[in-house]
């Protein structure tokens, strides 16, 4: 089992979701976050006072999958999120020790899907 964490541009979310559904990946969590990579953030000015390097809005996806789904999930996220410009984001894949479905108390791979 793996936990796939992807940081993407907010406006690519709909595209990424569409790609994921095509791959039968229907379970995901989405959160709105702030951050920046190589873009170094944006400049903001309030009443003439300039503040540079402010954080940018990003979207974080968290998807827990069984091994067989890892590559197609990653490929789907890349297809949906890639524009080729700086700021497209990153995908982190981390091992997942355990997973429990609260309703049934199932554990492991059966609990994921």
């Amino acid at each position, binding site marked *: 089992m793996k936990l796939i964490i992807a940081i993407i541009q907010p*406006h690519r979310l*709909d595209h990424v979701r569409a790609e994921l559904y095509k791959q039968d990946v229907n379970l995901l969590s989405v959160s*709105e976050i702030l951050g920046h990579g190589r873009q170094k953030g944006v*400049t*903001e000015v*309030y009443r003439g006072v300039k503040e540079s390097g402010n954080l940018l809005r990003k979207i974080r996806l968290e998807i827990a999958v069984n091994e067989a789904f890892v590559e197609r999930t990653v490929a789907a996220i890349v297809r949906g999120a890639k524009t080729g410009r700086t700021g497209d984001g990153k995908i982190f894949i981390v091992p997942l020790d355990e997973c429990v479905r609260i309703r049934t108390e199932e554990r492991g791979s059966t609990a994921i899907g």
Partner: protein
Amino acid sequence: MPNFNAADTLFVLISASFVMLMSPGLALFYGGMVRKKNILSVLMQCFAALCLLSAAWVIFGYSLTFAPGSGFWGGLQWVVLKGVGFELFAEYSATVPNNVFMIYQCMFAVITPALIAGAFAERIRFSAYLLFTLLWSTFVYNPLCHWVWGSGGWLRNMGVLDFAGGIVVHTSAGIAALVMTLLIGRRKSLPHNPSPHNLPLVAIGTGLLWFGWFGFNAGSALGVNAVAVNAFIVTNSAAAASGISWCILEWVRNGKPTLFGLLTGCIAGLATITPCAGFVTPAAGLLIGFFASIVCFIGVALLKPKFNYDDSLDAFGVHGIGGIFGSLAVGLYASRSVNPAGADGYFYGNLRQLGIQTLGVLVTVLFVAIGTVVIYKLVDFFVRMRVDEEDELLGLDLSQHHERAYTILE
């Protein structure tokens, strides 16, 4: 002292402040509808119009529009309000001084171009917006307003009735909105229409607009009299009926009535009743309001998806269609018993008035469409109308103004 009427003058001044409040009202109405990365750009557009066009109106706008002049527009004799004092100018009002009429009309000149902003929201460059607004106001609004309301205006002399701006304000802004949305193109990366980011703001905006509309419509009587009170009642009735009918439509068609639908219906009714307010009975007001939502609903919910144009906030669908429908409705429901200075419409035995209204609307649609295309091309050539794709995706608040409305972290 000139022979002015104190009650009338006070009424028009207060009406002017009501109408001024419609610009911030419109800002919130529109601002709540856009995505949260663009709300400041919309508020900025409305407030910038208030500043820029107020100044332009005093410097040359009022003179070009209302000074007695040629057939096309007014003269230059009232530039910087030279000669526009506390004296009466009988052709506009026999009881309210010229400079009071001037500041009242100023608020109309401000809100009309601001209405168009709903069509190109979320993708226009701020500098291009300013230039477009100033040029459109000068070369489209000022002449058109002169034709319909100005001394010697040819549509006015022909008998076109427009009580408070169904043609001058709503038809003109609505048609300009349609042209702008076609020329500037769809917003990027929108697989579906984005949800409004803050409907409570839309509700507050609607409230302010409805309130301000009393100044807009009743104030257009330019005095404390039967026509003004009738216009007040007709305005409220139409807004109410229109809100109800939009709700019914949604209930029947989609299963649930929505707040956004009700608010849209109210605004559609207000826009539609604007040309009629001082000429029709309250019963006719209810009826016109009821049909206003039906007509505008067709525009917003059926035509827009079918023709696939991206009128972001339905400036054409609500103001354009409502304004045209209302301007034609004058030709049906107007009655001399309501306003002796008006005319009878078709239902009172005068088919001719309907013809005159139709002609007035056609002339306006043509003139505004051509004028808007020319101004768009000019502005686009010199400063580029549309933002870069990256700026659009980042949001206009950050890309055009370097600030944002909401924070996630302090």
